[in-house]
């Protein structure tokens, strides 16, 4: 009697894991009041870098986007770059040119030679835009969410198109941490669920029984209350939003003999420990995911 019961229970549990996920489920829309076109200047000077907080100097000013690049901003780029021939359609991908990396032949190194590489996939159900063969449009409700499902080439291409660039790891880290202390998170030393969007942080965009954690609009964690959900103001010392959680952010800089590109900040899909400023993730530059986005920097 006990054995069939156990088997039925196990079968029912396994069946529950086969529930189809509705990736187009509606999403609450909120205006965060944070301007995604804004930039902030990070002044030259020393800051405490890494887990060990080693004093490190960046001897120039640079400007960095206040938020991640949004879906809306990226769709504008895709339409413009497709129209002027910078990007093109290749099968189920949008591709763009990349000059290539110096190949060292190191162990596990992928050869990235000059050529066209994936910018974004088209027809991927996890993407937040539609493409009708000639024009990109944002799926309604996702306009002010960070652009995701974008490869490192796609991030590099966006920044380069507007004469910006991806931040180096040190530039990203200084922008997130500020210069005054060794805080692990952009807002301070401790993390609460309403500081940032991370795995099972119980924000209004997630449903852990179906699609799991989803992105939140850029600048969402600014101290405002949305339909009864109160956020903490989680701005970094220089006034940046979402430098921890929501989406991993591609950064520039390439290590010799290492074809992976680094990401920082943790994401909606990671535990809070990965939101610590110094935590690195990496992937090959053609990788894309619903948890990876980016922001750009420029010289003033």
């Amino acid at each position, binding site marked *: 009697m006990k054995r069939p019961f156990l088997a039925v229970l196990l079968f029912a*549990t*396994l069946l*529950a*894991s*086969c*529930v*189809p*996920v509705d*990736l187009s489920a509606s999403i609450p829309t909120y205006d965060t009041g944070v301007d995604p076109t804004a930039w902030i200047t990070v002044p030259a000077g020393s800051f405490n870098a890494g*887990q*060990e*907080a080693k004093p490190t100097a960046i001897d120039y000013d640079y400007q960095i986007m206040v938020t991640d690049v949004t879906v809306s901003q990226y769709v504008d780029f895709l339409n413009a770059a497709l129209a002027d021939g910078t990007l093109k359609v290749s099968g189920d991908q949008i591709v763009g040119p990349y000059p290539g990396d110096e190949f060292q032949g*190191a*162990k*596990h*190194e*992928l050869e990235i030679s000059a050529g066209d590489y994936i910018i974004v996939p088209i027809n991927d*159900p*996890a993407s937040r835009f539609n493409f009708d063969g000639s024009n990109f449009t944002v799926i309604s409700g996702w306009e002010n969410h960070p652009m995701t499902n974008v490869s490192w080439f796609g991030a590099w291409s966006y920044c380069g198109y507007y004469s910006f660039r991806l931040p180096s790891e040190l530039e990203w880290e200084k922008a997130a941490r500020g210069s005054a202390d*060794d805080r*692990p*998170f952009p807002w301070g*030393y*401790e*993390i609460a669920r309403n500081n940032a969007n991370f*795995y*099972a942080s119980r924000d209004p965009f997630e449903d*852990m*029984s*179906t*699609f*799991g954690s989803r992105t939140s609009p850029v600048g969402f964690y600014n101290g405002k209350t949305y339909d009864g959900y109160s956020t903490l103001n989680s701005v970094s010392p220089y006034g940046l939003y979402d430098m921890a959680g929501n989406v991993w952010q591609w950064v520039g800089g390439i*290590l*010799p*003999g*290492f074809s*992976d590109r680094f*990401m920082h900040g943790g994401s909606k*899909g*990671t*535990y*809070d*420990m*990965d939101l*610590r400023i110094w935590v*690195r*993730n*990496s*992937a*090959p530059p053609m*990788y894309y*995911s*619903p*948890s990876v986005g980016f922001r750009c920097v420029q010289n003033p």
Partner: protein
Amino acid sequence: MQFIKDRFNYLFNSTKGLILVAIAMIAIETAIFGMVSGPMAEFGVRDVIVRTLGMKLVEAEREGRIIILYHSIAMAVVAIETYMITSLLMMKEFYKQAVRVLITVGYILTIIFGMGFAYWGHNWVFHGLFITGLSLIFFAGVLLVIALWPWNKEYYQPEKAYARTKKGVDVERMAFFATALTTVLSSLFGAIPGSYYGNGFETFMAQDIIRLPEKTVMEYSVIGHLHIMLALIAIMLTLIIGCWLNFKGILHKIAMPLMILGTIVLNLGVWGVATPLEPVAHMIIYVGATPAMLAALFLLIWEWGQLIREGTSHLQKPNFGQKISALLHDPLRFGPLWQMLFMNFTTSFVGIIMAVELDKIFRLWPALEERIELTGHWHALSAIIATIILLYYGDMIGLKGKLRKLYGWSIIILSDIALASVTVFEMKRLFISEATQQPLVNTLMLLMDIGLSLLLVLLAIVLIWRLLDLFKRKGRWTEEVENELSEEVEK
């Protein structure tokens, strides 16, 4: 006073008492610190535990805390294996007592003061006592190596049924000796970089640097250390189980030299990771792992054959079903070898698939996915080691009849459900996308939690029963106080 003295004598001066204390220490540590990570954090349990116990968790020190946690649990496991070895194998009484005293004081200092330092603020006296504990365990290891010296005529193997040299040197003892010696030497590969990084108060987890193309000798040393120590704990446990089950005959004669060869080559390969041999180190490791795993396979074939023969001895021509029934009759004897076989699905095959397909599949995924695979892989192997110890412990405390079956099968089924779920979780990206994974992740997490939490409940029941037993004047403990494991080797 006599009441306390008698119990203290049982707990700290008898083999089974010492093993009970170490299992209890690990169980308590796992129960408390398991609640500050993993799914318990999501449920909000971590916050309650941290507040209630007054823990001080500094974000930048997370890696250091985990390193101390892993070491303190591992030291208790090493102590359990040492108690078993010193009870199963002949050795001079002085060495037996000295090894036991050193390792007992060592692992208790390591757990109490290591965890105190890691989770309750930085009391540097605690850190010193943690290091003292580790050092005592090292010295216990050195003494154990001396005690196991196989070329002493007293320890020669008189019986031809066991592996021995022409002169009569006990090859099984040589395997224990080789494993103990290489364990002591391999610990240096952690101790030296540990001192180096500890001096600068820098910490890192091996899985976080595994992809970086350039690593220092010290970083390679740490990576080698953590792999080999777990492998050696597993090899030593295989030898212990073989000893308990009275492994002998032709398969024993083939398996023991293979185990020695495998252990030595495996160590050379892992040590090679921190030398200019690094580019070929993995090949040496595969060469070493193969004979060691073959030796374990021979033990499995022998013991399962024994179980089938014993269970069907009353039948003239047993059919397949009767043979299977005989094989599964005693979960405490079937289980340890089954768990070793199951380990191949959760650990070895995963490792081999990853190594073979690393550049084609795994390195195309983000580093975080690889981290999940690596940590899952090590945790699975550690959990399997723990279950094998618990199965042997069930036999040690004399579980019989239905209770024996319930205890044994619960450990096997619950742990295998959890470990199978961990394996699917590690490999999920092979068959499901990030965007659609959540229902599967939920199910796997549920199965892991059910398996592991019920296993801990079972362990808690056993420990409470043993605690209550200590209050009885003529409890089971009074029978165990003089028992040695060598007296209970299967005939």
